[in-house]
């Protein structure tokens, strides 16, 4: 397939994840994180990337942002073209009407630049803080999606959203339930960074078999552009350490949590590292193109982690835009909302 113009690749590249974490190994002044985020999205816009993606968690020692839409609203004031996405908002944990209103208000103030990624969530403590049963998250999600549609249709007295007929919703996850849910509602699908190309292909096929909707399919990918093998290896070690803390504290494996089952934890961490696209621009382009070949419309390149220095992040963004994007071969234009 011929390489398209740089703009084409850029239209299919989002960058994430903005979490506002201040961790034990990579501490940061909280206010500075919010200030840097604005600078980061301005760099993204300058380089013509499609979107900036945030994630949501709550109540953890590292201050992970519990309300991404609200900080995106502030950042929207500093940008005009860049789109703002969430991978993912923990919809079952929220009041659905308030959620719909927050997303719609962001849609209005940003003049239609919001991509609403939603997922089930998995941390028991988060559900418990809100007095919600984690095992009801599926039902709550389905109910919330219906409520959101009703709010956006004006049933609760609000005006219509800016984007017509509605801002795009991306259902996050890789399980068959997630794919069915996305298909049932004709929403987009956002696959996590823990899926390999074969799984992506299967998910795309499954989605397309269930619906005629041409809603887009996205996938998160940990990405780092580094031609020097030593530096690449050092990044992978840091990536490993980052996921070790997160998975060790939170990922549930069988009946136990990460740190309690160190061998299983290590197995999962090794897989995450394998899936990361870390290497030269050529290697990264190839990896991303294999995702596009598998049927993905948008890749959210995760360049940002707690341990990434801002200057390095800006270099990565420039490299992604200049050395990788021109070589990407997405299959089709991203469908409009």
């Amino acid at each position, binding site marked *: 397939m011929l390489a398209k113009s740089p703009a084409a690749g850029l239209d299919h590249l989002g960058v994430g994840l903005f979490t*506002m974490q201040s961790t034990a190994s990579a501490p940061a002044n*909280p*206010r500075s994180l*919010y*200030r840097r985020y*604005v600078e980061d999205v301005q760099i993204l816009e300058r380089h013509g990337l499609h979107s900036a993606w945030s994630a949501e968690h*709550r*109540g*953890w*020692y*590292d*201050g*992970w*942002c*519990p*309300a991404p*839409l*609200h*900080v995106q*609203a*502030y*950042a*929207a*004031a*500093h940008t005009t073209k860049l789109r703002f996405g969430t991978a993912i908002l923990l919809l079952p944990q*929220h*009041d659905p009407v*308030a959620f719909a*209103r*927050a997303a*719609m*208000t*962001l849609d*209005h*103030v*940003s*003049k239609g630049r919001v991509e609403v990624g939603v997922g089930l969530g998995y*941390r*028991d*403590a988060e*559900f*418990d*803080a*809100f*007095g*919600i*049963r*984690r*095992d009801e998250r599926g039902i709550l999600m389905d109910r919330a999606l219906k409520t959101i549609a009703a709010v956006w249709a004006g049933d609760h*007295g*609000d*005006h219509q959203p800016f984007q017509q007929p509605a801002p795009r919703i991306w259902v996050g996850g890789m399980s068959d339930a997630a794919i069915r849910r996305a298909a049932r509602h004709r929403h987009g699908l956002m696959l996590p960074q823990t899926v390999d190309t074969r799984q992506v292909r299967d998910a795309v096929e499954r989605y397309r078999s269930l619906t005629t909707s041409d809603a887009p399919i996205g996938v998160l990918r940990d990405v780092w552009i580094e031609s020097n093998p030593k530096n690449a290896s050092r990044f992978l070690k840091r990536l490993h350490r980052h996921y070790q803390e997160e998975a060790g504290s939170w990922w*549930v494996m069988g009946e136990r*949590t990460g740190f309690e089952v160190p061998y299983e934890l290590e197995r999962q961490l090794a897989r995450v590292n394998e899936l990361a696209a870390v290497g030269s621009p050529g290697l990264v382009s190839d990896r991303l193109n294999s995702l596009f070949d598998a049927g993905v419309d948008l890749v959210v390149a995760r360049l940002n982690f707690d341990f990434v220095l801002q200057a390095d992040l800006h270099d990565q963004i420039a490299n992604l835009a200049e050395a990788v994007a021109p070589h990407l071969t997405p299959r089709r234009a991203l469908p409009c909302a």
Partner: protein
Amino acid sequence: MRLMLEPTCADTDALVEAARTAWAAGLDGVMITSTPALSAPLVAAAYVAGLVPDLLMAVELPLGDRHPIEVLEEAVVVDLAIAGRLVLVTRPVIGAAHMYPEALDLVRTALSPAPFRFDGSYWRVPARLAQNIRGTTEARVTPSPARARLEVWSAGPGFAAGVSRGLGHLADADDDPAELAREWTQHRMRIGPALTGAPRARRALWTDAEQLIVSLRSGRASFGQDWAVVAAPTTAAAEIGMRVRPRLQLNELPAGLEAHWDLYASWHPSPRTADQSQREEQASHVGLKDTLLHPATGEFAHQPTEDEVRAEVCEDSR
């Protein structure tokens, strides 16, 4: 007295324009509430604050319909994004006012930078549901607000609950000042000095500058009002900033000053915009002689002789 503009417009661009004008007019802040077009006022406020610096952003929200922790998290995130400029004004939900005091207590408990357990009648945090097997026995709201504390007020019917907790309070425009005075005094007697400094705010509906001046002076005299939230069109912001606000900062003003203000206000009816201010900072300063320019003719006012000056100055000592 500190003054905030409550814009009467609904759409994004008009709201930004109102905030910009409020900034240029020297007002302290703007009040953002829910409208059908922008029905999540915290989101709207974050956006407006991104375009307009320095202003306090007061946001009024109901407290008691959704989980107070959800409201608090959003407020804290906005506060961090806008560098500590948020004033969270909370109001009881109509029909669920009985939940308001507990919601306030939960919010204030959760604002403390410490793990907590809250066991109320309406909310239990963490809930410790049996099905959440990997739940914890403590909860925590992170991140923390930008400053040492988040400014939280009560509003309207939330008076008793808010003021008895030492919060600032935003009274409604039609609240009777005499009644407010009685209530503030009662609480002051019960709670004592802990109430000193708690903002005593009231809404006002704009009609004209004279009315507002009278209303605010009366508010100060009756219940010690020291904040005003004025619902006004954007075009009124200049008058609020140039005619009303200066008159409300002190009770005793030198003779002739208010007349002088009125004179100046008629020369420059609209305040400088943000852009103009920046340009003027670079331009040369206004010289002394400009202050003596006659408003009508633009020529120099009468330059007093030495004798006239001496006569004036020595008058009192004769």
